[in-house]
């Protein structure tokens, strides 16, 4: 037992030599992005490739992408708690941290996209006046609730592990962990468990609403082809589950490798997560087909033009690369893995899930950009500038950086069985 706890605390107690250059590398990318953003702040959004026709670009793509990634975390851990599936317990916290980090990034992406970030306090000042009408306010509400609930949930489950950790470390670390658990009592577990149970009951519907309201930001605009669909909510949720679980597979596989947690993570965890990801990818491909057939066969002019641009026009290379390499190939491998009894290849699964996650980023790009650049001549062609590209890399380096730092602070698994 005690050996196991030691093993689980290894990331906190020891840091390998490779960790620092890795952090430095990520920090450099982030600093470049911060520089790019200061440039955007001082000169205006004109430094991006956006214009009066293609109004939204990479920042909004990032926003939808990170909201999607955030779905896996609490979903897994709430499911673990509600359905008492002990198999997935070891990855629950890894997934929860992913949720918090990616929700933060989603919020950041929206702020980066604002023309006047200095006035964003008006979102709070005018909140009650605008709540009944603006889908953006609905989304802020949903995301805010989700972030509050999930961080509370994470903190409550962490308290006990902070206590155990504080008993096993010395010096400033001990003080730090004791500082994190004010008024800790040994008898609080049963209360905390009860609170966590009801929190997970609450979080699951909130989670569904979060991505539905993200979809409604777009799906309630009657004039925008391929955004204005009734099934936007389910469509986005399916993508969120596929990409979210995919990223959990990737992160868990990396953790397993670098911290030598081969016996902690049952390979069946990877198989189970990949199976759900595979199934949702299949549903997603089906939904995409349904959407495109509708737009191509009977579509009004605008729908037809966007769909044509997707499949045969200027976005076709992205679309087909994304669909074949990013969706169909991973799907086929994961299908093969699902139906071969006892077969799990964690490394290949991780690679395939990486492809899947990247594909879903490009899918979000396909949602935003073609719809906003139809039927126009030179004026609306959108090419991201170096500012946007550096901020894009930065918004991927920063969450990895945050995650890497958090693995050095938070115990990544429940240290003791109840």
């Amino acid at each position, binding site marked *: 037992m005690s050996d196991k706890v030691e093993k689980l605390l290894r990331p906190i107690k020891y840091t390998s030599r490779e960790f620092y250059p890795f952090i430095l590398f990520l920090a450099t990318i982030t600093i470049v992005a911060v520089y790019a953003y200061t440039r955007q702040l001082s000169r205006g959004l004109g430094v991006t490739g956006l214009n009066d026709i293609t109004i939204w670009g990479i920042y909004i793509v990032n926003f939808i992408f990170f909201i999607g990634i955030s779905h896996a975390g609490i979903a897994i851990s709430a499911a673990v708690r509600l359905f008492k599936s002990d198999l997935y317990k070891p990855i629950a916290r890894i997934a929860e941290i992913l949720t918090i980090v990616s929700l933060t990034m989603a919020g950041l992406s929206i702020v980066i996209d604002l023309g006047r970030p200095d006035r964003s306090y008006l979102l709070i000042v005018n909140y009650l006046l605008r709540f009944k009408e603006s*889908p953006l306010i609905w989304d802020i509400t949903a995301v805010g609730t989700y972030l509050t609930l999930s961080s509370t949930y994470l903190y409550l489950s962490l308290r006990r592990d902070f206590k155990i950790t504080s008993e096993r470390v010395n010096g400033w670390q001990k003080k730090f962990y004791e500082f994190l658990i004010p008024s800790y009592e040994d008898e609080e577990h049963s209360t905390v468990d009860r609170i966590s149970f009801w929190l997970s009951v609450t979080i699951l519907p909130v989670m569904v609403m979060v991505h539905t309201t993200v979809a409604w930001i777009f799906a309630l605009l009657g004039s925008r082809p391929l955004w204005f669909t009734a099934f936007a909510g389910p469509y986005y949720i399916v993508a969120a589950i596929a990409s979210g679980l995919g990223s959990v597979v990737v992160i868990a596989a990396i953790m397993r490798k670098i911290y030598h947690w081969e016996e902690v993570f049952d390979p069946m965890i990877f198989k189970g997560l990949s199976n759900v990801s595979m199934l949702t990818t299949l549903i997603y491909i089906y939904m995409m087909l349904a959407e495109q057939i509708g737009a191509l066969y009977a579509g009004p002019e605008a729908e037809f033009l966007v769909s044509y641009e997707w499949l045969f026009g200027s976005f076709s290379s992205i679309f087909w690369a994304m669909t074949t390499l990013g969706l169909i190939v991973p799907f086929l491998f994961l299908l093969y893995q699902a139906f071969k009894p006892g077969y799990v290849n964690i490394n290949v699964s991780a690679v395939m899930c990486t492809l899947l996650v990247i594909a879903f980023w490009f899918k979000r790009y396909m949602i935003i950009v073609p719809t906003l650049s139809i039927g126009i001549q030179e004026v609306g062609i959108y090419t991201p500038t170096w500012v946007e590209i550096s901020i894009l890399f930065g918004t991927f380096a920063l969450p990895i950086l945050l995650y890497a730092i958090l693995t050095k602070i938070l115990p990544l698994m429940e240290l003791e069985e109840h």
Partner: protein
Amino acid sequence: MSKMNRRDFLKSIGVAGIFVAFNQAISGYKKVGSNFLKKVVGTTYKPPVQGASFAMAIDVGACIGCRRCEYGCILENNIPEAPSNMHWIDLFEMTNETPVTSVENMPPVNGVIDYVDSPKEDHWYLSFNCFHCDNPPCTPVCPTGATYKDEDGLVLINYDICIGCRYCMTACPYNARRFNWWQPEHSPSRISPIDGSVVPLNEEVPLRVRGVTEKCTFCVHRVRDGLQPRCVEVCPTRARHFGDLNDPNSEVSLIVKNERTIRIRENLGTQPHLFYFTRGVKWNDEGEKL
């Protein structure tokens, strides 16, 4: 339900009290919020004309594509010409084969915005500015209430509380809205491309800052004083007509009543206040009035 002890009773009183207090707090907050805004806001418009519903009607047959309206608008409304080439009025050169009803995309697929000579044979000219819809899709989506529909039918923007999320721009089916991608630059005296005169900055129109949305206001500072919008005034062929739809004797009311008018993308239910009609072509190929 045998008995309710004192503690439960106090609890329920407490819950009810919190509920009432919360509601009170919210209503108080609402008042404080709007007062606070009034103080912060510097963009002020003249009070709306009671009972009016302003609208515009454009005779596409009379329009010769000279774009005087576009330049007149730029000068009147302090639209920065640098660093971005912004204009509130878009004028599209369409081929004769394109019916108005096929304009399903904004800007129109078959329209050309950068043309030199006009009028051209077998072409007609389609002018867009903000449609000031009765049921505007752009105002409800605004997260701060910066854009709103006023009582006299004008859709306006409060430049001081716009946060630049550009949600209204994606919601607008007519691409009527413009964004200040850069810091707008104004020279104090501008030379009019219409008659070469020097035009100072208009003091009645607030200047915009970087990162906010703007669009046609139907020249709110003029029409609320009973004047015509600048684009209507400068049109050499009288293709543009402006008036109050609620006044049965106004020019626009008479046109809507007597002519066959259409509105763009009516299927969206926006009920735009920009009517298109034609009384036939009014110029020859040399651009001379018939």
